């Protein structure tokens, strides 16, 4: 499941961040910011009409992300926190 499909308020665990293209700087920055395996993540808010952008909480930080950026994050299946 991708981060973009996560419902608001539901907790999940990050599985990995996939590069969208070669030398994906956004993906590598996401990893630096804490989107790594095993990290709890939660969607805090999402913009109306399509949910772009969304606000996620990773660890103890909140980030506003576009769908395209959040799309890179895959979540561990069957996890709930």
């Amino acid at each position: 499941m991708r981060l973009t499909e996560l419902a608001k308020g539901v907790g999940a665990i990050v599985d990995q961040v996939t590069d969208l293209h070669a030398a994906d700087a956004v993906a590598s920055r996401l990893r630096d910011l804490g989107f790594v395996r095993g990290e709890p993540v939660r969607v805090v808010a999402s913009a109306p009409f399509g949910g772009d952008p969304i606000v996620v909480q990773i660890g103890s930080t909140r980030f506003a992300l576009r769908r395209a950026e959040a799309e890179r994050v895959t979540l561990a299946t069957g996890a709930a926190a």
Partner: protein
Amino acid sequence: MSSAALNIALVGNPNCGKTALFNQLTGARQKVANYAGVTVERKSGAFTAPSGRHVRVVDLPGAYSLQSVSPDERVTQAVLQGRYPGEAVPDLIVCVADATNLRLHLRFVLEVRRLGRPMVLALNMMDAAARRGIRIDVAALSQRLGMPVIETIAVRRGGTRALVAAIDTQAPVPAPAAPELDDLHVEVRALLADTVVMPAPTDRRDDAIDRIALHPVFGVLLLALTMFLVFQAVYAIGKPMTDAIADAFGTLGGVVGEWLPEGPLRGLVTDGLLAGLGTVLGFLPQILVLFFFILLLEESGYLPRAAFVLDKLMVSVGLSGRSFIPLLSSFACAIPGIMGTRSITDPRDRLATILVAPLMTCSARLPVYALLIGAFIPHRPVLGIFNLQGLALFCLYVAGIAAAMFVAWVAKRVGRSRQERALLMELPSYRLPNWRDIALGLWERGAIFLKRLTGVMLALTVLMWAICTFPSAPEGATRAAIDYSIAGYIGHSLQLLFAPLGFNWQISLSLIPAFAARETAVATLATVYAVGGEEGAALQSALATHISLASALSLMVWFAFAPQCMSTLAIIRRETQSWRMVALSFGYMFVLAYAASFLTYNIARWLA
């Protein structure tokens, strides 16, 4: 006496409070420049440690990582390693981390540790950590990291004393231990598990406020309400001070007038300098009040929430989410805003933002608005506690923003390119503003204003006065003396162009110096009316008697959409490397302003 000066560098993630720490260490002794060869800001300062040792501090740009993706990070890494040409090697690195968010900040600390240079960790925002019940075993952390760890509260007086003592008394700090593990995140988790107790990952206060601030409907309402209240405050607080300054200058003018000998020099001083510059100076309180609230919003951490809420709207008119900051910066002055568009990768988006940025009412137009509103909008309460003048100011600003949205939307129809619109924005914890930093910010704003006043505005006022006074009226003159001067000639000629908008010749004339600095329109109007014979009367009452409400409204609308100052045009030329863009920017705004003013004037006249 002490040994040689110590060079220290401050590093940290964004939002770790590094700036407040830097301000507290160096006070007002700061210098901002650029690193040689790049357009990265270099902040430096100095302080004297208790032992008498001179300490030079460099505040490096906030960075999430040393991965060298952006020029900020490249510079930070190079300076820390002592590789940056022209930069002294820092003897000590002070890494600043937010104690309430070590999960994010510690990773950077570990990355900096890998550089193998002497460093010290400053755990900042310890007051917020204590409030949230976060307990950190500082000794254990220090031992695991292999470096001194000091608690700081940058926003509190004396909150950096321990840090200064640590910097001061350290014998050369040993370079920290080699990293334990390869994966920084795994190492961070291990460290946190052993040394930090965190009851909850988020602050309950943040959660509660964000439930409203990030709400799709209430968030927008909150933003609109905030802006509305800010403009109310500008009038409620600023106006009495403005009136007081105006009275003071009136009295001063009278006194000086009697003290100086007869002749043209007296005219220059009373009508030109005191009337002209004094009137503009009178609006400084309102500018400062506006900036006070803007700084307050910035310090509180609310602005990223506003960016989130507005993002949908921005994208729908064809502006990228990254346009928010350049456009917001334009409220102070369009120039940094236009330069800030460099962060927009898509060239079409960038051009759209550059063309639209000047519509955001810059602080230089505030004296013009304040003057006209003060003269024509009655001081009446609305719904009991709000005032009508504040409402008028709010409407003018909103008009600028609405025009910007409209123009961006039009630009969007013209060309479209599909490019990734990055956002990736941290929403930091809300925090109480630091009054000292706000005071510093206001001081700097006031200094900029005074510099303009004694520079461009002074020069223009002298020139305007000169052309208003010479040549003097010939023998047997029938009209007022000023009509025969150069100013009269130019003004009457220009009026042919602006008559449909309801501008009289004095207003038409004042539009010329307004090209160099928008506020000068106020100074010029004051000078023109003073030379023209309005003895002792304040400009506001002079305007009230000489121009109609419809003309005033038309002039306000003109300034809301008017072609911007020369400096902005120069920057557009420099940033776009094209005269066509400058012509386009000037041209479309002239047409927009002319049309809007024409409509306003005629509708207002028809309604009256």
